[in-house]
């Protein structure tokens, strides 16, 4: 086991998969000289034929990724910032997601689309998007939202090996978070949640950057004798519904923490999945609480940003609320 940070974990995953499989390549804007650590040094190892710089043409190069995947390659397309995905929305939602289905299963699209999501700090509305919920609305896309270096590397490798289009959210708040990873090859399968902490009183389903925050809250509340169970879905599509429901059955109380827009977001889906499950519904002892961004674009000011982004305080308040102690 070694300690690496989140960006390094991604970087290692890329390297290993590129060595393992010659059809894997990486493309995006300025990927040969990246500002962040995700793609650091890749071009030195694999050359500009496999680490391809693109012009500023998001629809064009995402679509080119779709085509290359259809033609037998395994592209990893880097959007740099996930808010730029809107420019490629049609290629993602209409082509990547639908091609296999429309064509009656004739083709597979082994494509990974990655990009930075979340809060870089005072980057304002255009550079602070976390649109995973929006993409969950599109049938045909798998969606990965890792919260630890271990999961990041393992899920990336699983995503690259998957024969379907996968959106991979790199939450930038986690970029420098460190954690242990094994030396040997491993993957984290898509669709399997992870119990990041066991507990008995309240289930907190936390996504991406909310996982460490939920764990902090759990630590704090443990001192008061409140026991939180922290469930990290790790992939939002497929969603590990059994794991979530099992936890809720145990605790009877559910808080969902997602650093993303609230309305029709992942937290709404998880709430709906739980409340529509016949087996689980009867165990629910309290209203489900969502902890999400306030529903505005991200402001630039640190003061305003802190207010909009959900934090430990808001998770804790939600926990107290579902325990009837607010």
């Amino acid at each position, binding site marked *: 086991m070694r300690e690496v940070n989140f960006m390094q974990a991604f970087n290692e995953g890329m390297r290993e998969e590129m060595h393992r499989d010659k059809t894997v*390549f990486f493309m995006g804007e300025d990927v040969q000289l990246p500002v962040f650590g995700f793609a650091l040094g890749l071009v030195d190892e694999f050359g500009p*034929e*496999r680490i391809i710089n*693109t*012009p500023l*043409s998001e*629809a*064009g*190069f*995402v*679509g*080119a*990724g*779709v*085509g*290359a*995947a*259809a*033609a*037998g*390659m395994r*592209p990893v397309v880097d959007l740099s910032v996930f808010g730029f995905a809107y420019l490629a929305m*049609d*290629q993602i939602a*209409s*082509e990547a997601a639908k*091609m*296999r*289905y*429309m*064509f*009656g*299963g*004739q*083709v*597979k699209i082994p494509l990974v689309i990655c990009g930075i999501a979340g809060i870089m700090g005072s980057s304002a509305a255009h550079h602070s998007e976390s649109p995973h919920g929006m993409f969950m609305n599109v*049938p*045909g896309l*798998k969606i990965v939202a890792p919260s630890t270096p271990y999961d990041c590397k393992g899920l990336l490798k699983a995503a690259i090996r*998957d*024969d*379907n289009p996968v959106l991979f959210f790199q939450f930038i708040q986690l970029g420098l978070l460190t954690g242990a990873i094994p030396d040997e090859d491993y993957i984290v399968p898509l669709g399997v949640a992870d119990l990041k902490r066991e507990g008995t009183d309240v289930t907190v389903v936390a996504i991406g950057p909310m996982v460490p925050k939920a764990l902090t809250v759990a630590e704090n509340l443990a001192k008061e004798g409140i026991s939180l169970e922290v469930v990290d879905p790790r992939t939002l599509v497929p969603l590990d519904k059994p794991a979530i429901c099992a936890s809720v059955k145990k605790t009877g109380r559910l808080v969902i923490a997602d650093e993303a827009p609230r309305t029709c977001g992942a937290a709404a889906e998880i709430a709906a999945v739980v409340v529509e499950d016949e087996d689980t519904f009867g165990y629910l002892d309290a209203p489900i609480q969502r902890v999400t961004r306030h529903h505005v674009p991200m402001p630039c000011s640190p003061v305003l940003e802190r207010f909009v982004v959900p934090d430990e305080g808001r998770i804790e308040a939600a926990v107290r609320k579902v325990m009837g102690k607010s």
Partner: protein
Amino acid sequence: MAIDKDKLLELYTKMLLIRRFEERSADLLMAGEIPSGIHSSIGQEAVAVGVCANLRTDDCVSSTHRAHGHLIAKGGDIKLMMAELYCKRTGYCKGKGGSMHMADYSIGFIGACALVGGGLPVATGVALAAKLQGKDQVTVAFFGDGATNEGTFHESINLASIWNLPIVYVCENNMYAVTTPTSYSIPVKDVATRAVAYGIPGETVDGQDVLAVSAAAGTAVERARQGAGPSLLECKTYRYLGHFVSEEFLLGGKNYRTDDEINSWKARDAIALFGTKLMENGVLTKDKVASIEADIKAKVEDAVTFARQGPQPAPEEALEDLFV
């Protein structure tokens, strides 16, 4: 003519096959047998056939909402096509795609795309893959004049140019996007002019002359195959029918094209022009035409029978084919 006689006959036959397939399927749609909407390519046959005449089976083609001609020209199986129009399980896409989303990956037909301009980035990516894989495979992306106003046209050709990809962008300029004339929406006379913005060759040809199309496409395909990069080929042509089959009904008699205009194009019908030329050159005779027609008619009827007899998909099959 440098092309041999068999090849000439093949071009003629393919054009005629497209025409008859389109006619028959339009009739069947109007008769209520075909559920999928259809955008007919009648009038434009020479473009599909002239371009694809230069392609190998392992070359790739991407298409649009107006896809039948391209698929037939690339060697598609009209049985599977007709069955797909009937949305049968035996169709190309098991009934999921219909007219606007046909594909045949076994012959490099990477798919029709109903979103205008949507297929261009994908085709560009197929060409990128060929280059990365070191294959000498060429990709052709077909699209209409209207599509050249979409951002994807610009982004795709730019990518292909800077990466020197083996692809030919073929614009079928039929003078209209639905009801909107090209003269309104495109401020340059020839779409081919737009090639200048990407530093690639652009050429405009008479899309009613299958040999002219074939020659120009041949140059562009060869260029791509040699690794010399992409080209933009504009073929001026015309669709005889409405934007989609039954448009005439929906527009309630209002038309956006004059009879004179339509008739002047019909007077230069690609199949008739080519047929006359082949007769003049002795390649074709009236008898030969009759036998080709008979053969095509039989094939099309076979396709209709195949389509009619095919089973409906079971409802639950709707849940298949999303993920691998």
